């Protein structure tokens, strides 16, 4: 029974990684850049929700929506101010800028909220599910997180494949120059991608803080890196890949914590990443791309 319990907490952790990884993967797929500030947008989401629901007493569900919208605005602003002027620049410059934005957000949070740990009250106010005479307890957070993750993935896939805006995204991702010639506003499309990714980051922030009830200015950093690993593991640029990568990573992390060593769990997780990339450099679901010279 303990095994199932580890598995479920792994799934729930993985679902959070997956939602964050979706943000990474979409931005990479379309703008071809690694947005390392994504993890910190999650942290900002956590703080917005904390301020709304705990300090101002807003209903937690409304606080979640405010937080997601706040993150969306933040993401679009960051894209507009920091990344768009660098659209033609080398990818390294954009990467460094993203790291700069990440530190900027962390330090602004440090200034506003201080470094003291805040204890986050879970927004999901439901009793845990008990199975097999209480031997297996599944927290409501785990169930909600997993469901939200699957719903988000399904909606995103539908959006990208069935709507005109989604087609525009795919076109920009395929070839930005050609897409622009076909009349697609590529800047607006990239902005939209950031908006969606950051909206998800806000939701991920609330879910992350609900499951692991602590909030500091560096809360987003480690999950951000792990989610990036998940995105690469699943094949960066692929939406189902991000989900599979996230779930795999979460389960792997928890099972190695439980059965091998709780100290080495991170080492094991990252070794798996290296092995997968050695065998499949494009990740599990990644498309092989032929480089045109």
């Amino acid at each position, binding site marked *: 029974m*303990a095994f199932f*319990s*580890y598995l479920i*907490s792994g799934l729930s*952790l993985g679902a959070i990684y997956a939602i964050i990884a979706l943000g990474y993967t979409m931005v990479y797929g379309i703008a071809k850049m690694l947005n390392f500030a994504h993890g910190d947008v999650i942290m900002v989401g956590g703080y917005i929700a*904390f301020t709304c629901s*705990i300090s101002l007493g807003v209903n937690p569900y409304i606080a979640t929506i405010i937080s997601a919208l706040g993150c969306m605005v933040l993401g679009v602003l960051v894209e507009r101010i920091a990344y768009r002027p660098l659209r033609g620049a080398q990818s390294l410059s954009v990467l460094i800028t993203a790291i700069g934005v990440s530190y900027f957000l962390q330090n602004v949070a440090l200034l506003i909220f*201080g*470094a*003291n*740990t*805040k*204890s*986050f*009250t*879970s927004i999901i106010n439901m009793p*845990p599910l*008990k199975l097999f005479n*209480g031997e297996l*307890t599944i*927290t409501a*957070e785990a169930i909600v997180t997993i469901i939200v993750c699957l719903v988000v993935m399904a909606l995103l896939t539908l959006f990208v494949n069935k709507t005109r805006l989604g087609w525009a995204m795919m076109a920009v991702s395929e070839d930005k120059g050609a897409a622009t010639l076909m009349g697609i506003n590529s800047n607006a499309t990239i902005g939209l991608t950031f908006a969606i990714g950051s909206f998800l980051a806000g939701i991920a922030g609330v879910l992350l803080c609900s*499951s*692991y*009830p*602590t909030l*500091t200015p560096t*809360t987003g950093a*480690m999950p951000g890196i792990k989610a990036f690993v998940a995105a690469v593991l699943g094949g960066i640029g692929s939406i189902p890949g991000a989900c599979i990568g996230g779930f795999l990573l979460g389960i792997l992390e*928890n099972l190695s*914590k*439980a059965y091998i060593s*709780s*100290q080495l*769990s*991170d080492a094991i997780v990252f070794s798996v990443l290296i092995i997968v990339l050695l065998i499949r450099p494009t990740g599990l679901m990644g498309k092989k791309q032929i480089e045109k010279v």
Partner: protein
Amino acid sequence: MKKILSFFVGISLIVSLAACGGAGNTQTASSNSSSGAASGTSTYKIGGIGPITGGAAIYGQAVQRGIQIAVDEINANGGINGSKIEFRFEDDEHDAEKAVNAYNVLKGWGMQILIGTVTSSPCIQVAAETSADNLFQITPSGSAVECVENDTVFRVCFSDPDQGAASAKYINDKKLATKVGVIYDSSDVYSTGVREKFAEEAKKCDFEIVETTEFTADTKTDFTTQLQKLKSAGAELVFMPFYYSEAAIVLTQANTMDYKPIFFGVDGLDGILTVENFDIKLAEDVMLLTPFIADSDDQLTKNFVNTYKRLYKEVPNQFAADAYDAAYIVKAALEDAGANPNMSYSELCDVLKESMLNIKVNGLTGENMTWNESGEPNKDPKAVIIKNGAYVGA
């Protein structure tokens, strides 16, 4: 091109001038302090270092306030043999490198005695500096063994191993449980130190350690797997030798998992009731080993707690008490040595080292505290239990 060149020349001139000025300043500062030693300033300069921002801020703030209260009292009551104390506190954010910077700032200010640092790893780093400089240091709460390895450093609190051993003995004597689980931070010297000695002492006890799980600084937000392991192993008591911010998460997650063992901690747990937005009901019945109980009846504690509450609007924790004691210990040692504020820090250190072995101090954290050459205090531990959101003697 010419303009740019002249601009750079100008900049470099300014920089070099500033450098001269800086060097000049330090010279005058040092000559001041040496002339001070000859002709006489009448105050002791006591410095303090600790985290007043960051994850361990609650300890640093408590220590700063504890020392301040003691210093104000001493000054109001005529000082140390007539000499007043000047006190200055610097932040280290619980970071070893920043602690050394803070130490250098204080030395530039003219510090003669250091009360600090507050947390273990910065303390070890600063202790190396004070012993190289021969500057007397007393740490209120640096509990790692290595903190007092040098003969210039003494401490007020118990060492980590002592806390571990005392916890095991306490659990055994009170028969709190037969199956004990341990969860600790393997990346932290404080946590591992307590854990090791606890495990060693547990071998001699009637209870059995059924499961030991660990976490690291990078994985300190999710404890569900560790808690599940402890639950499956049937641990009735969970020993958690780490700081309160992680403990708050452990308690929250254990509650959602419906796992309700006795939680038993050491002094790092002190402060759990002040975590912002933490549901203090979850900390009900948590036990911790600490030398200071705020609700005890003796006059000294009552006075201190009342003053602290009046000034800072909260109940002082053990760290504040340790710090308050540290200031009085320094006073006792200075009086015993017959020192005066005109002595250099190195001369003070030599006499204080001797006096520490002679003095016997009645403080908030122990009666008749004495010290030996190792720098360790000799006093009895007490256990407290959290009831209705307050610490109560167990």
